[in-house]
């Protein structure tokens, strides 16, 4: 154990992450060029990245966070994953104050993002997993067994000793998932995990994500720009815009919001989640 638990709340049995009124302000340093002078001066400006977000991530569920670029999705994930501290608001994980006990939280969560970063390309899959596992204090036979299990789970057993730089995009993404599971986290934060993948690999990854939540009992927070992915995977969806939650519900509930606005129903078919999302954001902005 890396740190003693401080401020355990009464509701110890809650199997969920609860965020209440999270706010995150950043200080942005802008360079102002004067008419004379070479270097200019710096001016500080406060950016309200997340204004007020309350959400829950229960175990065994996949929670979607959707929104356009700059809506505050990544900042929200970073706060929930204890990478950054919220400016205000409360955050608990299974009843434990996540802001005060961020080291304790870090043992029980992990983050998986899309793209090809976050891995050592010159190292093999096994070497990558051994390194990241060691950072969680794992070693010896336990770590070897965990690595073997994860490589089998993500289908990289045969490529275990090949340097990552020779991997395809899909293989790298599968290794990212294995890396994210190395500490056997209770909660996973997935930031666009199928970004840039072809439809076959993306489907494989989606099946894996579904199993991680519904079969293995992990709580997953998923952000994605692929609406069909959210529709397929998410049990509950939050829609963010300009740092606030503007709508939430199951995909059926979100689609149902459009029923009160006949102009958007352009065909006899049920509106898609994508139409619902665009309409909700447009309504909010107007």
């Amino acid at each position: 154990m890396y740190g003693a638990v401080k401020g355990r709340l009464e509701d110890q049995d809650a199997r969920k992450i609860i965020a209440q009124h999270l706010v995150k302000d950043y200080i942005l340093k802008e360079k102002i060029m004067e008419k004379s002078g070479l270097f200019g001066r710096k001016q500080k400006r406060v950016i309200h990245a997340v204004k007020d977000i309350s959400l829950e991530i229960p175990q065994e569920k996949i929670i979607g966070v959707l929104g356009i670029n700059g809506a505050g999705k990544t900042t929200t994930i970073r706060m929930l994953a204890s990478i950054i501290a919220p400016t205000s608001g409360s955050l608990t994980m299974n009843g434990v104050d996540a802001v005060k006990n961020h080291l304790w939280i870090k043992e029980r969560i992990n983050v998986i993002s899309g793209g090809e970063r976050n891995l050592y390309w010159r190292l093999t899959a096994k070497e990558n997993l051994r390194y990241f596992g060691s950072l969680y204090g794992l070693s010896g036979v336990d770590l070897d067994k965990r690595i073997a299990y994860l490589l089998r789970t993500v289908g990289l057993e045969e490529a275990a000793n090949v340097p990552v730089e020779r991997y395809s995009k899909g293989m790298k993404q599968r290794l990212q998932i294995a890396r994210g599971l190395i500490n056997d986290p209770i909660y996973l934060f997935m930031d666009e995990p199928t970004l840039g993948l072809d439809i076959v690999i993306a489907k494989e990854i989606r099946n894996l994500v579904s199993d991680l939540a519904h079969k293995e009992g992990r709580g997953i927070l998923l952000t994605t720009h692929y609406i069909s992915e959210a529709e397929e995977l998410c049990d509950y969806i939050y829609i963010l815009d300009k740092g606030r939650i503007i709508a939430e519900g199951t995909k059926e509930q979100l689609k149902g919001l459009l029923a009160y606005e006949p102009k958007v129903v352009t065909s006899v078919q049920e509106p898609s989640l994508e139409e619902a999302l665009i309409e909700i954001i447009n309504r909010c902005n107007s």
Partner: protein
Amino acid sequence: MKKFLIVMKAEITKQQQHDYHSAYVYFSLLIWPILGFFEVYYAYKPFELTDYMGIEDGKTLLAFLGTGFMAYTCFWSMVQNAWSMANQERRGGTLEIASLTPASRLAMSYGRALGALIQEVWMFVCFCGFLLMYTKTIRWDNLFLLPAVLLLLIISSTVWGGMLNAVFLFSRDASIVMDVFDMPMTLFSGTRVPVDSFPCWARIVSMVFPLTYCINIIRFALHIQKSSRGWQAEILGLLICLGVMTAVTVFLIGRAERHNRETGELQFY
């Protein structure tokens, strides 16, 4: 403590796996340091050496420069490694992933330093070891001094490297550190020129660099050169330097961690 050692071991192993993929690495391990060494040796050799600061002849000069370059290579490899690893880790996104784990940042810093030290200088240190035997600076009767000297170098360089790793956590471009520690460290720490031959102001500057004390202690222990300050003062100076560097490392890591919690970026600008 067990987890601290696991993290250190993981860092050392990772560096070894990450950096040893090409035979060209032996140029930086052995060829360039030896070329640098012989460049200085042959620059000094034509001049008449009549007991200048204890350097009496060609063999003493070899031993003097050998010890200087051996210690300098250990310290300089820490600067290079901290700079290159910090850049790679930041660009590759692995720094952020590491910051997501509960691993001790102090263990990571020292692990990186020790890993770099072991893999980057061992060949040149072997060369210097043979040089010291060739010049009969190390003989059978004082062979026990060799591991003692190596231990001193390993501990000092690791503490130094740990501090540099912490410094590079703050910035994606701390190239000023390279500028500060390249030529000034070579000159003022007495790698090539005895510190006692410096004017007073330069001797004061030399006290800032832990490498100065390291080199002086090694040369004193191997009877290459006496220290005008006395060996006790050199050891005390080194201990103070190591203490200050450790304190600075702990402080910087704490600040970097707090800054990262504020902004999500392990960098100040």
